[in-house]
């Protein structure tokens, strides 16, 4: 299952856990479900030689092995082929991409004889993409091509919401189950219990680390004081059940998006989140905490800042994209409102149909012509079934369509966020340039005033700032590349997501029409039988 599929199928049941660890990896690769037979069982029993066959499934699945081979320069891949156990503890953090790159080139040298293709082939999905983030000299076309190879073997699911505790201190715990063949995890399948604040905490951590690079961090579902209070208080009605289900599905989609993002998957926080049994409580996510207030203030100041900056650049790609994103967000919001209205009307229809069904049943009982009476009660039954149908349709409207839109509205916000980060990087660069300028002027003045000791200091400062300017410029270029890549990846994912979800929605609509036909076909002879 490609990562995009995962993000889309939020209602999916957790994938069946693969059999024993001794299962023949090759046969697993042949299995339609497992991802593209990319050899991830490094460090496992099977000799590397056997891996050559795996190339076939690769091409069979429409991969582009050619690209893999071409991406020689980066081989952080090689790392894991040599030391899987050490991988986890090697402290390789994807946050600092340049380090990976450095490490990789060293490893590749040592990787030696096994064809360069081998290690890169042997690597899990993360590698192609970590490569991408580090190799700046790559052309845009190559970047866009790389996006196709979104494949690795990790499926995550969020299930079994359970209420822990009682009263106002109660919370919902969700079971996060992972099935993976990635070597960086201890087991193939494992699950942990997490609560909502844990998910938020993960987002905070990822945000802190990665947003500065211009990554699009998938946003988690929103807090809902009202919803949670109802659950805490123990209201066992359909609205709180709906709320829990909605949250569970949203959390699942959130996690799926996180793990399908190549750089984020490398992040140890993500691994910890998926694996570690007990996570420290993420306090900074509480709504009314000090950290919470701080965040709000920061957000507000950010909002003011972003209004005022405009980058002068010859490449209008970023500007155009940002405008596109903004207008799309607007449209999605509009669409979301309408879909919500549809959901409400369908729920209303549902209620009214139920009431009507009862009324017709009553009419049927008072009707003295027996055939008509029977037909009327049959009609009441049909209307009852219609009610169930409307209910299901409303759920589909909501869970498939409305939630999709809500997710993407939030995601587009995150996309805007990464544009803002780029803006900030540009700002920093510009500011450093102007500071440098000032320092130079100060130096010139000192030259005039002829104060040798201060001059020395001034010269040091100038060198320092020159360094900073270069660094910030590099940062800006780097973040521009990242943003571009991220946006392209996002668009592909979005396109797939929307298509698959809309198709799913239409299919559910189709099914409901089929059932409708069955109901009325059953009723028709009854109606005709009236005499």
């Amino acid at each position, binding site marked *: 299952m490609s990562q995009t599929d995962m993000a889309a199928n939020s209602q999916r049941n957790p994938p069946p856990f693969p059999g024993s660890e001794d299962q023949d990896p090759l046969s697993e690769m042949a299995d339609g479900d497992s991802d593209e037979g990319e050899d991830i069982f490094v460090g496992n029993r099977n000799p590397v030689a056997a891996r050559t066959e795996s190339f076939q499934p690769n091409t069979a699945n429409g991969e582009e092995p050619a690209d893999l081979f071409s991406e020689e320069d980066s081989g952080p891949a090689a790392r894991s082929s040599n030391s899987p156990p050490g991988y986890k503890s090697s402290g390789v953090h994807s946050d600092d991409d340049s380090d990976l790159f450095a490490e990789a080139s060293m490893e590749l040298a040592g990787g030696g004889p096994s064809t360069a293709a081998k290690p890169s082939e042997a690597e899990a999905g993360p590698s192609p993409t970590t490569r991408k983030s580090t190799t700046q000299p790559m052309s845009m076309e190559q970047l866009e091509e790389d996006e196709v190879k979104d494949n690795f073997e990790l499926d995550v699911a969020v299930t079994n919401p359970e209420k822990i505790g009682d009263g106002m201190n109660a919370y919902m715990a969700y079971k996060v189950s992972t099935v993976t063949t990635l070597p960086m995890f201890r087991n193939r399948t494992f699950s942990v219990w997490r609560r909502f604040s844990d998910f938020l905490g993960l987002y905070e951590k990822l945000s802190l680390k990665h947003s500065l690079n211009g990554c699009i961090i998938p946003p988690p579902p929103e807090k809902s004081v009202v919803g949670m209070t109802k659950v805490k208080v123990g209201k066992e009605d359909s609205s709180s059940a709906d709320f829990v289900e909605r949250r569970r599905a949203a959390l699942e989609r959130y996690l799926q998006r996180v793990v399908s993002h190549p750089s984020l998957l490398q992040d140890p926080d993500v691994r910890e989140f998926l694996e570690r049994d007990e996570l420290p409580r993420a306090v900074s996510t509480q709504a009314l905490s000090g950290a919470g207030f701080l965040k709000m203030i920061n957000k507000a100041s950010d909002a003011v800042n972003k209004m005022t900056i405009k980058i002068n650049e010859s490449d209008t790609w970023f500007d155009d994209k940002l405008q596109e994103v903004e207008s799309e967000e607007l449209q999605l919001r509009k669409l979301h409102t309408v879909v919500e209205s549809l959901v409400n009307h369908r729920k209303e229809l549902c209620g009214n149909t139920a009431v*009507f069904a009862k009324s017709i049943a009553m*009419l049927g009982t008072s009707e003295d012509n027996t055939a008509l009476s029977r037909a009327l009660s049959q009609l009441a039954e049909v209307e009852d079934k219609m009610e169930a149908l409307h209910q299901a349709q409303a759920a589909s409207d909501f869970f498939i369509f409305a939630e999709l839109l809500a997710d993407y509205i939030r995601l587009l916000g995150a996309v805007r966020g990464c544009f803002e980060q780029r803006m900030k990087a540009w700002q920093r660069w510009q500011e450093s340039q102007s500071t440098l300028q000032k320092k130079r002027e100060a130096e010139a003045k000192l030259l005039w005033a002829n104060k040798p000791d201060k001059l020395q200091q001034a010269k040091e400062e100038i060198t320092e700032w020159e360094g900073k300017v270069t660094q910030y410029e590099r940062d800006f270029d780097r973040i521009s590349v990242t943003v571009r890549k991220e946006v392209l990846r996002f668009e592909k994912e979005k*396109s797939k997501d929307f298509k698959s979800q809309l*198709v799913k929605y239409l299919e559910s609509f*189709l099914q409901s029409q089929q059932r409708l036909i069955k109901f009325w076909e059953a009723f028709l002879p009854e109606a005709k039988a009236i005499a």
Partner: protein
Amino acid sequence: MNLILNPTLDEAPPLRTHRGIVTSHDFLTTPPAAAMMQEGLDDGPDFLSEEDRGPRAVNVDLQTDATLQVDISDALSERDKVKFTVHTKSTLPNFKQNEFSVVRQHEEFIWLHDSFVENEEYAGYIIPPAPPRPDFDASREKLQKLGEGEGSMTKEEFTKMKQELEAEYLAIFKKTVAMHEVFLCRVAAHPVLRKDLNFHVFLEYNQDLSVRGKNKREKMEDFFKNVVKSADGVLVAGVKDVDDFFEHEKTFLLEYHNRVKDASAKSDRMIRSHKSAADDINRIASTLYTLGTQDSTDVCKFFLKVSELFEKTRKIEARVAADEDLKLADLLKYYLRESQAAKDLLYRRGRALVDYENANKALDKARAKNKDVLQAETSQQVCCQKFEKISESAKQELIDFKTRRVAAFRKNLVELAELELKHAKGNLQLLQSCLGVLKGDT
């Protein structure tokens, strides 16, 4: 708004010929015609017209056919009135010509109905319920609001909404035409009422009948009369009837009437929600369209296709709601009114019974006192005759009512089921072809 709506011009001529053919079994001939008109609007196959011509041909009562046919051949909607052209074909000698038309307004229909109600001779018959007043207020309001909000929406949205509202207006208009026609046809089909002089005047007199609507005072009088009547009705209903048939009918009608009222209200609500949902799908379609036209990526093409699909399914959903309205809601509404008329008949009979019993008591008293015996005797005779006359015709009327009701329900429920199936299959086909295209692309 000065809208000239000429149903016959819009739709196929068949509407005219079979509108007048009616029997006491087939009261709801025209609402299906209205449905037909609605179908015609959306260029669907003219499914109902074929359907109706079939069974109707079977139900035709040849006796009524030749002697008196009434239909509304034309209608004009002006600002706040609707003018109906009542067209009559008759071989009866009392009419000057064999075929003629007059223009009538709603108030004249009401006058005719009231004249029946007030006529003692007809106390023993179920008076066909009066058609409801043409009510375009809601529709007019919406059109007005649309006009005001013209600036705030795009040209396409505006034209789309305008078309929808106009279609709604047209639908209401056709329904009211149908209701008025049904009333006339019922009268024409009734063996006694068709001979009524007022009815003939109504049909023939080509000048204005000068029937003004009731002024405030008269309305107040009516109101009080109704209050008295319902109080009396309660009293009368309390009197146990010797005749089992009527006793049973009394309880039955009471219960039935209440339940029909309930069902009618609930069906209205249900259909309204259905319409709102269809409207929402419309808006979704246009927003998707906007999204789709922003770019030419394949996801945008996808949106455009889905938007198109939603447009089509919305039309179907709107038709489903409209058909449900016609076949179910209108049916229930009509029987609400008819069951009320039947209740009124029972009330009149009950009243006559009470009068008869009182006259009997008075006669006994007079005989005992030996005073005014003759007077008491004649009044008792009169009451007795009245009561028996009413009872006789009432029995037949109520049996007819039952038969008519069963037939109408049958017809409408069958048609409802068939329409639901037709629309669901249409939806299914659209979805299947669209999904085929969409999946093929991805």
